[in-house]
């Protein structure tokens, strides 16, 4: 039993390295698009209070009505707020200390967005 688990653990580590996007290095400050902007799609105060309202409303429009070109979207959050590591690989926004995590961790909010949604910017 112990022998089996000692094989599985390295296997998991190797597979997570293979995925690449999951195993980015240390994020470099100033590498996210948002780092270079003054404010988000709404004023910062509004975003801090209501970002979840915006994307919750938008998700229904996207899924049920096919409206994809809206100002608010989770893909937009990730695209703009994901930093890169020294090699230019994107660091997941929910990784420890990164944009989404730093605030949600402080506020003790546990959200499920990223159990389904991508945590790094999409391929263009």
């Amino acid at each position, binding site marked *: 039993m112990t022998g089996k688990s000692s094989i*599985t653990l390295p296997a*998991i580590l190797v*597979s*997570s390295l293979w*995925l690449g*996007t*999951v195993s980015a290095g240390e994020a470099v400050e100033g590498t996210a698009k948002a780092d270079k902007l003054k404010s988000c799609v709404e004023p910062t105060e509004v975003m801090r209070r209501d970002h979840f309202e915006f994307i919750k409303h938008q*998700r*229904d*429009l*996207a*899924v*049920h*009505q*096919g*409206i*994809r*070109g*809206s100002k608010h979207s989770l*893909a937009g959050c*990730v695209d703009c707020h994901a930093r890169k590591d020294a090699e230019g690989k994107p660091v997941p926004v929910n990784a420890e200390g990164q944009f989404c995590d730093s605030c949600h961790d402080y506020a003790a909010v546990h959200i*499920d967005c990223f*159990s*389904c*949604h*991508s945590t790094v*910017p*999409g*391929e263009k």
Partner: protein
Amino acid sequence: MSKSNDSGRRDFLKKAVVASSVTVAPGVILHTLQAQAEPRTTPVTDKVRWGMLIDTSKCAEGCKDCVEACNKENGLDLVDKPEGASEELWERQRPHWIRQVKLKDNMTGMLTNLVMMCQHCEHPPCVDVCPTGASFKRVDGIVMVDRHICIGCRYCMMACPYKARSFIHADVAAKLTHTPRGKGCVESCNFCVHRLDNGQTTTACQDACKHQAIVFGDLKDPESPVSKALKKYPSVQIRADLKLNTGVRYTNI
């Protein structure tokens, strides 16, 4: 007085021209959207019903191009075998949006290959049975799962006569931006809805099929390739007896 009247008339004409260009605009904008593949900004309408015609006589033995293209487009190839699951279990349970089916006529021995996916029924049984409203039909005829609402009960999988739906049994490490996916939800073919909503007019399977066995398009537009093909060739719905009015039709079976 007459001068001001004149200018008033001129203004009116100007406005009329603007107004007419607006009424012309939807069609024009639609074309430019398709050319530049811009995302939708208006809700989908029931003036469109997406559908497909599959010519089984062109579907070649051993060819997997459409399945592989679908897997890549929708990130199904990124789903890993859950830890501890046997190879056999995984083969049975791994998500499929397109399934390859072989039919044999026992009398003559004739073999027919066809691809089976969500048939995008007009009256979808999966939507009837869904207790939460997660399984729904979009007004343009695409049957989808809203994963935000899906509780993973799998009634829809039981109800579907086409075995079109898959369940995601474990956490998914890598996912695509346009196809979110996570443990505990049901999913199936959605006619590459992210492509359609971003102004494209083809599906990945159709693009990948070098035998041109798949024709996709708007069933309500008599000029669309799929409508023309349906008009020209005899086609059938699979399990037509269920009167589901499927959006996917087949020829030569």
